């Protein structure tokens, strides 16, 4: 039985009871019996997870990140790195905090009254939550794709041109045309829409709308794209399109994808993080997490005992 590697960082809230539970024997290898978790008790000290949370040269480094909505702690002491040009999948049952965690990375939680984030998140070594930071500029470096496709009720062209326009990325109309074209090409949508760039984006199919939203993010030339269950409203063919697209995009940027589908996580990601009730339980190479999970909760989730 290999000893799990724990994250070095231990949260301030690491309780004696938690430590004790950790030492007195984690049931890391599943016994085969059906286990239905009934409490938050995961046997880990606060802030620790099994697997390898760290990478060399990360884009994002999260240390001891907790998110509160008022008094409720939605994410507790998450520590992990997100690597360059790498796809990280965040999986876990509903309400486990994976979407909340994702929204911390580009400070979208700022828009929710009462939301509070503690711990540190750095993007390329710079503190994301620095008071002096221009949040709009930060978000421009981080693309985001939402659960439901949300194109603006404008033309296809104007949707993609929105970001470049507000950030004044292009000097001339020809440059903008070029950028819109390459963004649509990168999103694999160009051949389908090149003849109707001036029609309303809301007339596209759901899958096309979602790829348009990805093109819209790409037009701002982000370093990372956050995807919050991007395929949950799409049919299998549209989902396959998006997954192919993720596979192409990983060559040029990092992607964090929250998904309910374990198959999807297994197909698209290099690393997988398993969240459970606001805590990061296990993180590691996707192959390892799915074939050889080290924590009982991960095992139970991926084998479909709950979730």
């Amino acid at each position, binding site marked *: 039985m290999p000893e799990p590697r724990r994250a070095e960082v231990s949260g301030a809230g690491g309780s004696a009871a938690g430590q004790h539970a950790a030492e007195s024997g984690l049931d890391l290898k599943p016994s085969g019996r059906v286990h239905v978790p009934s409490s938050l008790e995961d046997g880990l000290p606060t802030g620790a997870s099994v697997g390898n949370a760290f990478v060399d040269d990360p884009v994002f480094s999260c240390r001891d990140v907790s998110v509160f909505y008022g008094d409720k702690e939605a994410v507790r002491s998450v520590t992990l790195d997100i690597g360059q040009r790498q796809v990280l999948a965040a999986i876990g049952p509903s309400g486990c905090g994976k979407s909340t965690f994702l929204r911390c990375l580009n400070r*979208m939680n700022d828009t929710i009254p009462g939301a509070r984030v503690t711990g540190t998140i750095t993007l390329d070594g710079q503190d994301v939550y620095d008071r002096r930071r221009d949040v709009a500029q930060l*978000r421009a470096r981080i693309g985001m794709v*939402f659960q439901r496709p*949300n194109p603006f009720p*404008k033309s296809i062209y104007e949707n993609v041109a*929105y*970001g470049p326009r507000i950030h004044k990325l292009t000097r001339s109309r020809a440059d903008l045309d070029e950028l819109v074209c390459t963004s649509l090409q990168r999103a694999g949508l160009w051949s389908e829409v090149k003849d109707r760039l001036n029609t*309303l984006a809301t007339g596209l199919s759901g899958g096309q709308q979602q790829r348009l939203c990805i093109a819209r993010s790409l037009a701002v030339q982000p370093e990372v794209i956050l995807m919050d269950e991007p395929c949950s409203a799409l049919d299998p063919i549209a989902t396959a399109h998006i997954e192919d697209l993720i596979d192409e995009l990983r060559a040029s940027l990092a992607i964090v994808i929250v998904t309910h589908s374990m198959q999807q996580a297994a197909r698209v990601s290099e690393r997988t993080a398993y969240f459970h009730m606001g805590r990061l339980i296990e993180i590691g190479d996707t192959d390892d997490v799915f074939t050889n999970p080290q924590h009982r909760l991960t095992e139970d989730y991926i084998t479909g005992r709950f979730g």
Partner: protein
Amino acid sequence: MKFKVWLGVVAGVLPAALVAIVLFLAVYSWPAIHFNGPGFVVRDVWNLGNLYANPVTVHGVQIQPGASYGILFLIVGTLLSTLIALLLAVPVGVGAAIFLAEAVPDHLRMWISFFVELLMAIPSVVFGLWGYVVVIPFLSRHLFPFLALTIGRVIPFFAGPTGSGYGLLTAGVVLALMIVPIIAATLRDALVNQPASMREAALALGATRFEAMWRVTLPGARKTLIGATFLALGRALGETMAVLMVSGNALNYLPRNVYDPISTMAAFIVSQLDSALQDPTGLAVRSLAEIALVLSIISIIVNAAARLILVVWGNVQRSMAV
């Protein structure tokens, strides 16, 4: 069945009332319409004639000698004061709505919105009195001379003399204040109810809150803005008492600049009813009724146009989406 009949009666009363009012006005003012002819709306002299002479018969209608009824100056006064009110009220109303929707925390928004809406509850005569006591002295002493020296140099219609303070611009300002809450309250609701996903999409692309509001949320609510503007337009066209108290109540006079006294159709009906009743032939009152008819028709056209615009735009958007 009985219930349905009663509902039908209740629902039918309102359209019937509209038709009845317009019909009554048309029938009652028929002798005036016949005597005044289509020139009624292009002549700019309102003259009751010699009330001490014996009535004479012209075109089969009894009139006082010299009587002539034209309301061009009223139409001009009504349209110009309404236009000024809209030009002032739409930007202010949109700004207030954006402020309420975006900058005010939820728990305060309810209270501030409440006070904005209370502004709608103030009787118009109170606005009139306030305009009379506060707005007119301020505008005539401070703002009008300034405007005449600045904008007046560029746009002749704003050049002096700045007059007494009773006039077109004052009426426009007071009217604007009365219709700002209509625009602000209606648009605020529409902004708050815009789908959050559009705003999120803009923010995630690195838009500032203002950019998200100006280029995504506000365009999403533009139908409501147009509807609210027409609602405000209807209110401004028909506003009587406040305008009567601050407009200078001009008779037979077309404004030469923005400070000149005017009168509007609604205000004129009130201010002239007493003297019109002195006309023994009754034609003066019937001519006032003809003004009321014209005003009603303009208001109905404005409202119908508003609805038509919304319907047509709605269809355009839907057909484009297919």
